[in-house]
C-alpha cells in the first residue's frame, strides 16, 4: 500500500542522527516547560524558532512538534501533585488526580496519565496518517453557529455532571463567561468591565485564575483541617498502575482518545472541551459515579488521553488546509513558511518526505517521552513526603512565582491571590470552580461566535436549529438540561450528583 511505503520513507527521514537529536531536544524541553505551571509551550517555541532555522526544515519542525506534544505530557504533573493546573485542559485532571495523590496514589495517577498520553498520542498519529485528508472537512464544517452550539453543549455537559446543585453550577458558568469577557471587545475594540484599570484592558489571565481557584484555595481549605493534612502523606504503596487500575482505565483511555482526536481537529477550544467532555462521559458511563471526585482513576485516564489525542488531531487542519487550529500550530505554520514551505492542500503531495518524516518522528518522540517520564514519577512522589506544614508555604511561593513568570506582571499575582480567597469561600459555600474555569475559556468564543452567527443569519435565531451540526449539539444540550426533570432519569442524576467535593 502507498501509505506503508510513505511511512517507511518517513522513518528513514526521522531516524537520521540529527533528526533524532532534534526530536529528543524538543521533547525534553517540552517536558520541562510542561511541568512548570503557567509556562506553556508557546513561549518556548517562539523563542526557539530562530534556532530551528539553522537546520533543515525537517529538523526544525520535528523539534518544534516535540516541544508541543512533550509539554502535553508534563501538564498533568502539578495538577495531580498539588492541585495546580498549568493550563485549562489540565483543570479536569485536578479533580480526581489530586484526590488520588491525597490517598497515596500519586504514582498510579501519574503513571496512567503518562501511559494514557502515550496510547492516545500513538493512536492519533496512526489516524493522522490514514485519514488526515478525509477529516479535514470537519475543521471547516464548523462555522460560527456550530461553534456557538458546541460551546453551549460544552458548558451544559460540565454543569450537568460535576455538580450537586444545578443552579449553582450554572451561576458559576455565567460568572466565568463574564470574567472571560473583561477587556477589549474582540469585535469593536471597546473596553468592557475594566473599571478604568489599565491592567484589565488585556483581560484577566487564565493562569492566575486557575492557580488561585485551585492551587491557593486548596491550600486554604487544607490549613483548616488539622487531621486531613496527614492524608497527603498516606503510605505510597505503588508507583505504577496495577492490574485493577488498567482494567478500569482501558475503556476511558480508548473513549478519551477517540473523543479527543475528533474534537482536536476543531480550531479553537477543541482540547479543552475534549478533556472536560471525556470526564463527563466517564462519570456518566461509570457504574459507580459516586467515586468520581474522590480519586477515581478513570477520571484521570480519560481526560489525559483526550488531551493528548487532541494534540494529534490538531495537526490535521494545519497539514491539509493550512489553517492552524491553535497558537502552537500557528507557530509551526510560521516555521513552515520561513523554511519556504506553504502548508495547505498541496503540502502532503509536494513534500511527502517532510510530512511523513514529521509524523514518524512523532512516533519516536512519544516513545522517548514515555521513557523520559516514567522514572520521574518516583521523584515526583517523593515530593509529597514533605510534611504539609512545610509543603504548603512552598506551594504558595511556587504559585506566586509561576504566575509572575508567566506574564512578568505583578498585577497577575494580585489577581491570583484574590481568586484564591474567592475560591476558598466559594468552595466553603458549595460552589465549584471547574464550571467557572471552563466557561472562562469558552465564554469569549461563545460570545464572538454568537454575534457572528447573528450577523450571518441577519438576526434569525432559527439558524442554530436549521444547521444540522448546530442542531445536534443544541439538542444534546437540551436533553442534558431537561433530563434531571424527568422522573425516570432523576434517580440516576441524583446518584451522579452525590459528590460535591473535588
Amino acid at each position, binding site marked *: 500500500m502507498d501509505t506503508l511505503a510513505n511511512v517507511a520513507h518517513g522513518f528513514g527521514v526521522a531516524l537520521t542522527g540529527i533528526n533524532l537529536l532534534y526530536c529528543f531536544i524538543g521533547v525534553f524541553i517540552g517536558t520541562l516547560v510542561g511541568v512548570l505551571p503557567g509556562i506553556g509551550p508557546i513561549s518556548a517555541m517562539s*523563542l526557539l524558532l530562530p534556532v530551528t532555522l539553522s537546520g533543515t526544515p525537517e529538523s526544525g519542525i520535528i523539534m518544534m512538534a516535540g516541544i508541543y506534544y512533550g509539554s502535553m505530557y508534563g501538564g498533568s504533573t502539578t495538577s495531580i501533585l498539588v492541585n495546580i493546573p498549568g493550563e485549562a485542559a489540565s483543570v479536569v485532571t485536578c479533580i480526581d488526580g489530586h484526590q488520588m495523590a491525597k490517598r497515596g496514589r500519586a504514582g498510579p495517577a501519574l503513571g496512567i496519565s503518562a501511559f494514557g498520553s502515550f496510547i492516545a498520542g500513538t493512536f492519533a498519529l496512526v489516524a493522522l496518517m490514514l485519514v488526515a485528508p478525509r477529516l479535514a472537512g470537519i475543521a471547516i464544517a464548523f462555522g460560527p453557529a456550530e461553534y456557538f452550539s458546541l460551546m453551549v453543549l460544552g458548558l451544559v455537559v460540565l454543569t450537568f455532571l460535576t455538580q450537586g446543585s444545578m443552579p449553582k453550577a450554572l451561576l458559576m458558568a455565567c460568572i466565568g463567561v463574564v470574567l472571560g469577557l473583561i477587556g477589549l471587545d474582540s469585535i469593536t475594540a471597546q473596553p468592557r468591565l475594566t473599571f478604568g484599570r489599565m491592567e484589565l484592558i488585556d483581560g484577566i489571565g487564565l493562569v492566575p485564575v486557575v492557580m488561585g481557584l485551585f492551587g491557593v484555595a486548596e491550600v486554604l481549605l487544607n490549613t483548616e483541617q488539622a487531621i486531613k493534612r496527614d492524608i497527603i502523606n498516606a503510605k505510597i504503596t505503588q508507583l505504577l498502575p496495577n492490574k485493577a487500575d488498567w482494567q478500569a482505565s482501558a475503556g476511558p483511555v480508548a473513549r478519551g482518545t477517540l473523543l479527543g482526536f475528533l474534537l482536536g481537529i476543531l480550531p479553537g477550544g477543541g482540547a479543552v472541551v475534549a478533556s472536560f467532555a471525556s470526564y463527563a462521559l466517564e462519570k456518566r458511563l461509570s457504574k459507580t459515579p459516586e467515586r468520581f471526585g474522590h480519586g477515581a482513576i478513570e477520571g484521570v485516564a480519560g481526560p489525559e488521553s483526550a488531551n493528548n489525542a487532541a494534540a494529534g488531531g490538531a495537526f490535521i487542519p494545519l497539514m491539509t488546509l493550512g489553517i492552524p487550529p491553535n497558537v502552537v500550530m*500557528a507557530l509551526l505554520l*510560521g516555521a513552515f513558511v520561513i523554511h519556504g514551505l506553504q502548508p*495547505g492542500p498541496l503540502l502532503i503531495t509536494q513534500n511527502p518526505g517532510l510530512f511523513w518524516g514529521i509524523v514518524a518522528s512523532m512516533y519516536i518522540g512519544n516513545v522517548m517521552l514515555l521513557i523520559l517520564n516514567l522514572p520521574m514519577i518516583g521523584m515526583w512522589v517523593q515530593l509529597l513526603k514533605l510534611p504539609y506544614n512545610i509543603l504548603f508555604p512552598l506551594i504558595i511561593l511556587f504559585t506566586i512565582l509561576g504566575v509572575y513568570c508567566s506574564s512578568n506582571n505583578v498585577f497577575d499575582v494580585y489577581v491570583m491571590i484574590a481568586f484564591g480567597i474567592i475560591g476558598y469561600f466559594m468552595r466553603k459555600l458549595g460552589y465549584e470552580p471547574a464550571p467557572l474555569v471552563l466557561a472562562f475559556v469558552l465564554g469569549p468564543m461563545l460570545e464572538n461566535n454568537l454575534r457572528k452567527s447573528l450577523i450571518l443569519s441577519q438576526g434569525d435565531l432559527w439558524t442554530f436549529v436549521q444547521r444540522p451540526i448546530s442542531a445536534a449539539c443544541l439538542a444534546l444540550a437540551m436533553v442534558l438540561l431537561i433530563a434531571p426533570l424527568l422522573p425516570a432519569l432523576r434517580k440516576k442524576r441524583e446518584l451522579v450528583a452525590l459528590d460535591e467535593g473535588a
Partner: protein
Amino acid sequence: MSRYGLKTIAFAAMHVVGALLATAAGAQDYPVKPITLIVPWPAGGSTDISMRAIADSASKVLGQPIVIDNKAGGGGTVGPATMAAAAKPDGYTIAQIPITVFRLPLMQEVSWDPAKDFSYIIHLTGYTFGVTTNAESQFKSWKDVVEFAKANPGKVTYATPGTGTSLHIGMEQIAAMSGIKLTQVPFKGGAETNAAVLGQHTMLQADSTGWRPLVDAGKLRLLMVWTGARSPNYPDVPTLKELGYPMIYDSPFGIAGPKGMDPKIVAKLHDAFKKAVEDPAVIATLAKYDMVPNYKNTEDYKKFVVEVTESERKVIDTLGLAKK
C-alpha cells in the same frame, strides 16, 4: 492558552541548547532580554507570517529573540490598544500598527489616540488584498456577485478580518458604487476567514493574501485583487479599476511602541527592522504573499500617519460611517 508571549522560562531551554544558539545576549544596554512584538491578528495569517519573517531577521541584528504575541481582535486594534494602555515604553514591547488604528477612532469611541499614544518606529510594507469565493460557489466572476446581490439585497455575506479594516471599508465602497447591499461578518484574521469561506459559512472572503495556497490548490476562486496592476501570480484576475471601481487598497503598515520611548531605542529598532526589510530572505517571504517592502523612516512615518488619518476621515464621512 497563554496571553503573553514572553515566557522567559524558555531561556532555560536556550541554555540547554546554548551551543545551538548563535544569538546570545551581548553587552549592549539595549536589548538585554527578548522583545515582544504584538501582532494584532491570529497566528497563521499573512500578516502574522510576514511579521514573523521580519522579526526573525531583525532579531539577528538586535541579538535578542523577538517573541511574537498574537493579540487578535477589533480589526487589529486590540493589540496596539493594549500596548498603548499597559506596556512600558522600554522598547521591550512593540506592536504592528495596522491602518485600523487610525481609522477606528474616526468611527467610534476608542481607548487610544493614534496621534498621541504611540512612538512610531518604522514603516514596513503593505498588503495585496483580494476577494475570493468557494470553488463550488455559483459565483464565477464579480459580475455574478453583483447580479445576485441586486436580486437579493443583504443576502451576500463576506468575511473580513474585522470591522473598520480596509477590507470592510473597501467592500462597502464597492457596494455603494454598484448600488448593492452586502453583509459584513467580522472575523479576527486570515486564518479564520479562510475557514469561513472554505466551509461556505460566508459567501465571500475579503482578505489579504493568506488565501493564496487555497486558491492555488483550487479550493477557492479569486474574484478580484485590489492592487493597482494585476498580480503576476494571477494574471487572469481583474483589478478593482478594471471592474469599474477607481480605487487601490494596500493598507500599508509599520510598527510602533508605547508613547514616550527613548529616541535611541527607537533608532536601534528602526535600524534593525530596516535591515530586516532589506534582507532577501524576508523579501522572498513577503513575495509569497504578494507584499512589497514599503520603507519609511521614523520621521516620514509620523508624517504619513497624519496624512492617512486625514484621507481616511474623508472616506469614512462619505460612507456615513463616522462616529456621531
